[in-house]
């Protein structure tokens, strides 16, 4: 098996085993989205209007929740040292870890979104729009979070630092994700305008994230 394939398989296995984080994100997402209608009251029109925003907010917080262990766990048990000594370029190794993270936490959120959309009285069009924007936007959340995870390891400060570092970077994803979902439902902007910007944000973070994270890890070795 190839080097990176082995890393991907291991990380996916780890997160679906006991103690892994795969289900944690989805459960958190479920909790946030079920509580909102209870808190906001039974106004169906209101729920339909804020629904896309609630789904996006839940997805963002759920993916932040699982990011802090992305590299810290490997650092704590010494695995990261060996990853640094591997023959695969560090940029590709961290990108592979990010891919495994997205497959086990981002993708389940996309899949869960239609069911939770029903809780929020979303129309089929709105559900489709939210799913599509989440599918495009959650990789950006993982890629920007990767930078924060690497910095938290490099600076040897976990916990609060990661959300503080990552949240500003995720704001454009949230803004354009919600904007395009809303544009699909109520307008007046055509769906394509914010959605194209969301795609651009994702592409930029997919390129910048692994390089920035690898640079942070290398710098942190000193």
């Amino acid at each position, binding site marked *: 098996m190839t080097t990176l394939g082995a890393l991907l398989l291991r990380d996916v296995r780890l997160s679906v085993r006991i103690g892994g984080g795969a289900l944690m994100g989805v459960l958190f997402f479920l909790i946030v989205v079920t509580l909102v209608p209870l808190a906001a009251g039974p106004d169906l029109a209101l729920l339909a209007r804020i629904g896309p925003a609630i789904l996006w907010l839940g997805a963002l917080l759920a993916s932040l929740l699982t990011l802090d262990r992305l590299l810290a766990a490997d650092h704590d048990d010494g695995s990261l*040292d060996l990853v640094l000594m591997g023959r695969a370029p560090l940029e590709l190794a961290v990108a592979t870890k990010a891919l495994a993270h997205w497959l086990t936490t981002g993708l389940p959120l996309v899949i869960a979104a239609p069911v939770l959309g029903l809780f929020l009285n979303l129309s089929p069009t709105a559900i489709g729009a939210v799913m599509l924007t989440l599918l495009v936007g959650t990789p950006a959340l993982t890629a920007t979070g990767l930078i924060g995870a690497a910095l938290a390891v490099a600076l040897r400060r976990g916990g609060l630092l990661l959300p503080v570092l990552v949240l500003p970077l995720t704001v454009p994803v949230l803004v354009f994700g919600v904007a395009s979902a809303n544009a699909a439902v109520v307008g007046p902007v055509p769906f394509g305008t914010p959605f194209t910007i969301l795609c651009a944000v994702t592409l930029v973070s997919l390129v910048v994230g692994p390089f920035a994270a690898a640079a942070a890890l290398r710098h942190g070795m000193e």
Partner: protein
Amino acid sequence: MFSGLGFSAAAGEILAITGPNGVGKTSLLRTIAGLVRAAAGSIEMDGGDPELTVPEQCHYLGHQDALKPSLSVRENLGFWADFLGGGGMAAEAALDAVGLIGLADLPTAYLSAGQKRRLSIARLLAAKRPVWLLDEPTSALDVAAQARLVELLRGHLRAGGIVLAATHGPLGLDARELRLGRAA
């Protein structure tokens, strides 16, 4: 950390790095492994694979065992063998060499400290790399496992490998000593 340090090791040679606590034995090994950047000086390797850097041709056995408790013994070893380049013993043979073959399907969480140490030693056998950097390799090992480790080291040296081991106790091998000390 340290200065005025120069040494070389030939193929088939074992170097025991000794010295008091905190003198920099681990840092020296981590520098060679490329995990700490050297402020000055260089590390070179003659006759290695010219396509690879020095750290890519080294095995590093640190204080931590780099094992995931929720994966089985076989999965942990298989992953590192694939990731570190393979080319060594088959996983079964490596597990047999460290005496863990009977536990291959057990989650690593159930292993004792000494068994985990043996599993991470099996990693050195399953992926073939010429230089072994061992930091306190005998810690947590019982007498029988230590003897087994000495045999594995002998085998590696006979095949032309190099071993650099930071250690306090005697290794049981005819090792050249590199004593780190504080400058007078």
